[in-house]
């Protein structure tokens, strides 16, 4: 009989705890702080331009339906009156800093806590991030393996995660993908 009373008391306490938890709300000023990689134009601009070129075509990550969305003049534009055309002569406009920032938010927002851990560790283990593993082809990726650890494309990304963007590597990475032959016309 005593045992039954104990069980009932426990159940009542449990129900009370659940009810309290269900009714409680997060404090309005509640924040989760993460350590984010640098977002400045100097740090992320070259990375964003590389991502736009390599990953941001309209049929890949230049698509708002993707988890990672990349904005830029080679793909999806942020403003409704802009078109995916870079050259002013063709009626286009180069990628804007707002588009860089939109790409930044999309990228950093994918796995914020993992990103925080990678940045806090000065980018020593970028492979913790899904987008790095996908780019390297270490995880299922429709676009396949696009970068090789240590190549300019990879260094462009990992140097940014480490806090010191290698702008030379990013500039070089823009030339990828390299096609074996240059079309000479039919």
């Amino acid at each position, binding site marked *: 009989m005593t045992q039954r009373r104990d069980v009932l008391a426990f159940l009542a306490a449990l129900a009370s705890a659940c009810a309290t938890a269900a009714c409680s709300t997060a404090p309005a000023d509640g924040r989760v702080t993460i350590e984010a990689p640098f977002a400045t134009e100097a740090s992320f601009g070259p990375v964003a331009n590389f991502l736009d070129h390599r990953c941001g075509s309209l049929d890949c990550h230049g698509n708002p339906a993707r988890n990672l969305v990349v904005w830029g003049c080679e793909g999806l534009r942020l403003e*409704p009156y802009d078109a995916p055309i870079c050259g002013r002569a063709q009626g286009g406009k180069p990628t804007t800093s707002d588009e860089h920032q939109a790409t930044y938010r999309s990228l950093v927002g994918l796995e914020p806590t993992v990103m925080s851990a990678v940045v806090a560790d000065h980018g020593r283990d970028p492979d913790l991030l899904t987008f790095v593993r996908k780019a390297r082809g270490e995880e299922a990726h429709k676009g396949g393996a696009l970068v090789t650890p240590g190549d300019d494309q990879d260094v462009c990304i990992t140097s940014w995660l480490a806090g010191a963007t290698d702008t030379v590597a990013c500039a070089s990475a823009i030339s990828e993908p390299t096609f074996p032959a240059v079309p000479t*016309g039919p």
Partner: protein
Amino acid sequence: MRALERRLQPAVGAMVAMVAMTSCVDTTHDDQVQALGGEAPGVARGPDHRPNQPCLVCHGGEGPASAQFSVAGTVYAVFKAPGPAVGAQVQIEDISGTTIVAPTNQVGNFYIAARDWQPVYPTQMQVSLGAATEQMLTHVGREGSCAACHQSTIGPGSPGPVYAATDMSQLLGDGGTGP
């Protein structure tokens, strides 16, 4: 017990059939097909139909078209002009270095049969017509339908239709002295 089994058999059979049917229906694909609408009046199904629609929605292997393409699209002669590029050469090179050339027909359509070639993405493309050659400025990552990105109108997610020349003078190669 056997009587109960017999009574349940039709219900179980119907349930199995329903599950099998729903698991085979791709509503997303069906919606995409429906969104293309019907055939244009006076145009029969075939190589001339549905210019500047995303060909592989129907011709990509999921039906309803039986002919399957790996790459297909429509080319217009001049930027922002409605005339098709008739007899243009569409050159596609994939990342493995294989290059293929497909001609456009009388409505500007071109297509490459899936059995003839499957590109290794990414690809790069160029179009030649008359004196003009236009190289696509970005590469293609995965999409076989030109019109999936090159939609009829220019906007934040579309550079507009594919064209062979920015203006008539480029097409004629006369530096602007043509008709």
